[in-house]
């Protein structure tokens, strides 16, 4: 596979969220505002790209028995960097994201890419695969948060778009809407893929 193919496959064709149903926790939790989603997505891309690169770099020296632990620690180290960066530069966003930044560690997408790709492939390819998976994840976040912020607050990235008479849909601010929107999104994409397969 060329590098471009690796990226496209991991970002769209085998997208972690809608094809493999991974990383749902944070997908749902941070999508009430577009800004939060974007920052979260960038954090995941950063942690994913660097951890897959590192894991792939030391893949031949890691004994199989401690592989999982080593991967978790590497991921953990990068997530701590993300957390510290956010606290320093974007304290407001960091407060709103709360524990979900730390939860990137247990985000199955990171472990999934480490196990499925980085443990067998060259560092640079793994990094591209990681960035691809991160971009795919961020896309899903942005789509869901676009709908939730627009209907729930009448704004996009905090900027008012809906007119004066707009009444906020309070359900979009609450938890259930995230479940519904993600479900409908997976439904739509599945249907599209089914058609293409036939």
């Amino acid at each position: 596979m060329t590098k471009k193919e690796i990226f496209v496959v991991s970002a769209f064709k085998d997208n972690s969220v809608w094809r493999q149903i991974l990383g749902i926790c944070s997908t749902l939790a941070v999508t009430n505002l577009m800004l939060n989603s974007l920052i979260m997505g960038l954090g995941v891309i950063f942690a994913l790209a660097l951890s897959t690169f590192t894991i792939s770099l030391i893949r031949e020296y890691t004994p199989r028995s401690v592989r999982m632990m080593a991967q978790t620690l590497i991921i953990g180290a990068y997530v701590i960097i993300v957390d510290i960066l956010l606290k320093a530069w974007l304290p407001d966003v960091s407060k709103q994201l709360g524990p979900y930044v730390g939860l990137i560690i247990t985000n199955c997408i990171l472990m999934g890419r480490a196990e499925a790709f980085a443990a067998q492939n060259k560092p640079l390819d793994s990094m591209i695969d990681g960035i691809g998976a991160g971009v795919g994840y961020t896309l899903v976040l942005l789509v869901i948060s676009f709908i939730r912020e627009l209907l729930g607050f009448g704004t996009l990235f905090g900027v008012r778009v809906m007119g004066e008479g707009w009444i906020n849909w309070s359900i979009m601010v609450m938890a259930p809407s995230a479940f519904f929107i993600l479900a409908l999104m997976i439904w739509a994409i599945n249907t599209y893929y089914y058609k293409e397969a036939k």
Partner: protein
Amino acid sequence: MGITPFVLFWAAIFTSNILLTNFLGMCSYLSVSKEVESSAGLGIAVTFVLTVTAGLNWMVNEYILVPLKIEYLQFIVFIIVIAAFVQLLELIIERYVPALYYSLGIFLPLITVNCAIFGVSLFLVIRNYGFLQSIAFGAGSGLGWLLAILMLAGIRHRLKEKLVPAGLRGASISLIITGIMALAFIGFSGIQAVQ
């Protein structure tokens, strides 16, 4: 602060259910909920591990990380504590209660990567809970998770997959069911919210 452990316990089950309002532990929730029995097994294991690790991580944070001023290592230390505890539990159960090991054992490795466990540890640091509050919050969150996965497993058991549109089968319909459950749980939120 200021919420009694008793209130916190009930609130964690109903008004701020870890799964239905905080979306934690979704991965294993979606994949294991096909059968009621295995859901119950995993739920019980999660509840137990959550209660103990909430207490352990509270102590680690309070007596080791804070005095040494290395709170930034929280993420890694918490994960290690959880992984080590699960591993230890697996060994003990296998050695002394083999029957339980065969019914529950397969779920134990799944628990380390269950974000509900890690999430609860992070929540209790962020919200400044005391020791008893942490244990109550951990136990309540675990039971809330057990309740949610049992409900979904029960509904999925009765669901006739054939009547569901092809693209909606599997994860998507589970998400919609969960959404409706979450809506129903909002009804509890007038009682006491945890912040």
